[in-house]
């Protein structure tokens, strides 16, 4: 097995780590797309249709040697898979952990939005469902979501003592910026709304 120390020694060469990070980026994205496509869509044609792309583009996206994917293409493929893709800058220790943790089996455990919404209440995942861990968040509404403006209470802010206080506070924010629906995120992670 390739050890962390062994990889780190190679990465100490700047030219090597530049090439390695780029190569792993293009290869791991293509690998993920192919694995997730097989699980969620079966054929490239189905993913292409769901992503509003041609099959040729999906085929290229799965080619580990290609490496010229645009953000738009990756974003559309993520939408076709009903998953989110996040690009993230990380230190090289994270890159090693990422490369050593790559696995088809783990990718198959990634849930689409609908799978996640059924198995785990999404609001609870975000810490927005209320103070009690036993409280189950309602299912998310179907259709366009309102645009929320979330204000986080910080150290010197006063936490509302009850629901009425919280609603008053949220309405205050609502008056300041009437075009948005406000949420207030308490210091303990509890979310308050106007009603």
């Amino acid at each position, binding site marked *: *097995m*390739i*050890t962390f120390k*062994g990889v780190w020694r*190679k990465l100490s*060469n700047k*030219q*090597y*780590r*530049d*090439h*390695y990070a780029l*190569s*792993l980026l293009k*290869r*791991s994205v293509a*690998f993920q797309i*192919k694995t997730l496509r097989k699980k969620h869509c079966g054929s490239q044609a189905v993913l292409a249709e769901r992503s509003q792309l041609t099959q040729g583009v999906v085929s290229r996206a799965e*080619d*580990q*040697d290609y*490496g010229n994917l645009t953000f738009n293409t990756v974003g559309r493929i993520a939408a076709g898979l009903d998953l989110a893709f996040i690009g993230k800058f990380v230190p090289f220790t994270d890159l090693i952990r990422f*490369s*050593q*943790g*790559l*696995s*088809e*089996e783990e990718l198959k455990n990634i849930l689409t939005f609908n799978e996640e919404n059924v198995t785990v209440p999404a609001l609870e995942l975000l810490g927005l469902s209320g103070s009690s861990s036993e409280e189950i968040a309602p299912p998310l509404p179907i259709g366009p979501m309102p645009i929320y403006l979330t204000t986080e209470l910080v150290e010197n802010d006063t936490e509302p003592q009850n629901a009425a206080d919280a609603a008053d506070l949220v309405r205050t924010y609502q008056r300041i910026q009437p075009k948005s629906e406000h949420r207030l995120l308490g210091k303990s992670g509890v979310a308050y709304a106007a009603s």
Partner: protein
Amino acid sequence: MPIWQIKAYWLAGDTCPIQDWYRSQDVAVQAEFDATLDTLTAIVDWTDTNSFGVLKRDHLGLGEIRFTVEVPEKRRFRPVGIWPPIVEGEFILLVGCEKRRNGVLIPENAFTLALEYKRRFEAGEGRTDDYV
């Protein structure tokens, strides 16, 4: 966790052809090779990826890792190895190889050499160690 383990074949004289080949390559080639192996080890079925190919006819029993490096110009590489049936999830690298546009291999006898090392390995000569 990786599904496959990558090993390197060491000859009886304690030289390692794949390591020697690796060290003789540009840094860009080394990095691309390592990243190719990192993604391959995460894939269960190597026959379903264009990063690997099973050799046929005269070179039956060998498999080639496939990757290209585009800097500064496009070059294709085909390091060769074997996957002993008795050890599940293990791939042993035997020799490094570059495939030129006209199909010429560098070194020219790479596949023949790989078959010879395969024969020696199966005869119990040499040893394998982790590929690092």
